């Protein structure tokens, strides 16, 4: 199954990927590939491989676009969602999936994230959230917890962090969810639902960066960091069956907000239609 996936949906000539040992990004990339594969192979659905476009920005996460054997475009730092907006609007039948990082989508690209959410542009954004700028060597990002260390926060991070899924919800996203790398099956299902969702969807996937974030903050190796996810990140059903007191140090893995606002390109198609009708009159 796994090797099938690699042969079918990854650019095998370019593997192995460039991420560090223990990095969570490979897991998220696999989750995305599995989600797309399951959608394509589902006889009830009408998903074609050629209709998927993978868009990424800059950073560790964004190298994933190159490894996935789809139409893929690796853009500039922070601008993946804006490029994706152009692609989706130009050809609304495409399934445009943005692979981005916590810095890429909530710092340098934060403006594009909130506005794509507000417009309800039919994109699926997968944030590879590892709490750090990995590509440049471990600087604090907008999701680095307060007090944690980074190469640019040698005395502890003074900033307060973003919760990316809540940020998207606040900006009006019609679908915002959280996944992680420990709960792979749940995360694959969330990504599938995000792609199936007509409007803007965001999945904030908690990754791990043992090399920079983990080591600097004494979080242990990749296995230790995964154990933390297992203990602190809880899938929906179990989360809601927990007593309130147990939830205090836990976070929900699942869909956080959902609604069926009209999708942007559908709405614009109506504008075109009304202009054409006027022309005919």
């Amino acid at each position: 199954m796994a090797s099938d996936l690699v042969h079918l949906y990854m650019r095998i000539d370019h593997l192995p990927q460039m991420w560090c040992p223990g990095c969570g990004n490979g897991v998220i990339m696999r989750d995305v590939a599995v989600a797309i594969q399951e959608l394509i192979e589902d006889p009830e659905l009408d998903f074609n491989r050629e209709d998927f476009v993978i868009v990424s920005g800059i950073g560790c996460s964004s190298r994933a676009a190159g490894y996935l054997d789809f139409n893929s475009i690796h853009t500039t730092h922070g601008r993946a969602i804006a490029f994706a907006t152009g692609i989706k609007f130009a050809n609304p039948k495409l399934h445009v999936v943005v692979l981005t990082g916590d810095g890429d989508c909530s710092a340098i690209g934060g403006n594009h994230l909130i506005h794509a959410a507000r417009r309800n542009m039919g994109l699926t954004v997968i944030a590879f959230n590892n709490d750090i700028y990995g590509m440049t060597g471990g600087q604090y990002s907008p999701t680095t917890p307060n007090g944690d260390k980074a190469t640019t926060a040698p005395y502890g991070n003074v900033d307060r962090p973003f919760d990316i899924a809540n940020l998207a919800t606040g900006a009006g996203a019609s679908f915002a969810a959280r996944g992680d790398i420990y709960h792979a099956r749940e995360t694959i299902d969330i990504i599938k639902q995000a792609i199936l969702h007509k409007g803007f969807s965001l999945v904030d996937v908690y990754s791990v960066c043992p090399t920079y974030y983990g080591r600097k903050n004494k979080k242990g190796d990749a296995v230790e960091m995964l154990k933390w996810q297992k203990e602190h990140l809880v899938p929906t059903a179990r989360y809601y069956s927990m007593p309130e007191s147990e939830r205090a140090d836990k976070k929900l893995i699942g869909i956080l907000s959902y609604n069926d606002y009209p999708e942007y390109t559908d709405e614009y198609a109506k504008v075109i239609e009304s202009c054409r009708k006027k022309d005919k009159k």
Partner: protein
Amino acid sequence: MSKAVLMQGNEAAVEGAIAAGMRFFAGYPITPSTEIAEGSAARLPQEGGKFIQMEDELASIAAVLGASAAGMKAMTATSGPGFSLMQENLGYGAMAEIPCVIVDVQRAGPSTGLATSPAQADYMQAKWGTHGDHPVIAISPSSVLETYMLIIRAFNLAEKYRTPVIFLMDEIVGHMREGVELPNPNDLIINRRKMSFHDGANKQCYYVPEGQYVPAMKPFGQGERYNITGNAHDESGFPTNSNEIAGKLVGRLLDKVEKNVDDITRVDEYAMDDAETAIVCFGGTARAVMSAVLEARTAGKKVGMFRPVTVWPFPEKQLRARLPQLKNILMVEHNHGQMLLEVQRVAGREKPVCFLGRIDGTVISPQDILAKLSEMEENHHGE
């Protein structure tokens, strides 16, 4: 009644772009280019096209590049501050070879400057604004009709050479209204990027046959799978750290324009046949220069106008051809001396180059130019 219609320069940019096949516009409001966004918002849906107002200029050019990659002819329009914000992705467009047109209606700067006043001080930015060595094509119109015709040429060059083309307008032309008789759309030549569908022999998306410079574009999202990146990349479009491949790639990108300079550069010359003084200018400045040349000729002075229409690459060959007949050159532009540097480079030590510039947001008048010509004459006699 005349067939002519009254049209503003910015409006002509929209109509010309639509005639060229532009069906996607993403932009952000900024004076003095806003009428281009407004016009596109009104006109594009009527043509089945798409307009989107983005959150900033960074997003605008990104959306334009995305739409172009997905197969649409796309454009954005801005002015100095927004043009500055677009620079990074302009370089991306050059590196990833994505055609598009970027209109910069120049205004007086630096910074917010005088938002409603004319200038031409983005000339060097158009060439050197984005980092790294990259090809640049920039075109500058001097009338409303020319705006219409040249923006079509801008799209044609963008498509032919797979590169962003900068349409360098200025407030003078952008906000000017003139009566224009537009050509019949059937008489226009419209280029379309060279496409390659499943060509079998070579599936590499950036493959370029020996002796050619521009790869055929595979339609993205229409049945071909490939990778586009701003990293140095091999012919498959995948990032590489190979210095050899990177050097070859950037060399080819530059060659696209350098080896085709005769196809790309255009100049407009007036009364140059026997001219001893050439007034060099571009864009809206040509209006005052033409008035001055006509008046100088009436007074028996051998003055002509040499106007680069393609402002990048600078039409070096054409100016060089005029050097032997000239006593001197006068560069007139609404900046502190930008195209001047190109003219000086070409003229070298052979001919003196004088300069008349303006940086206060006002417009250089024919009288200013005539006075400068007289001053040049006096200095010459004084020698």
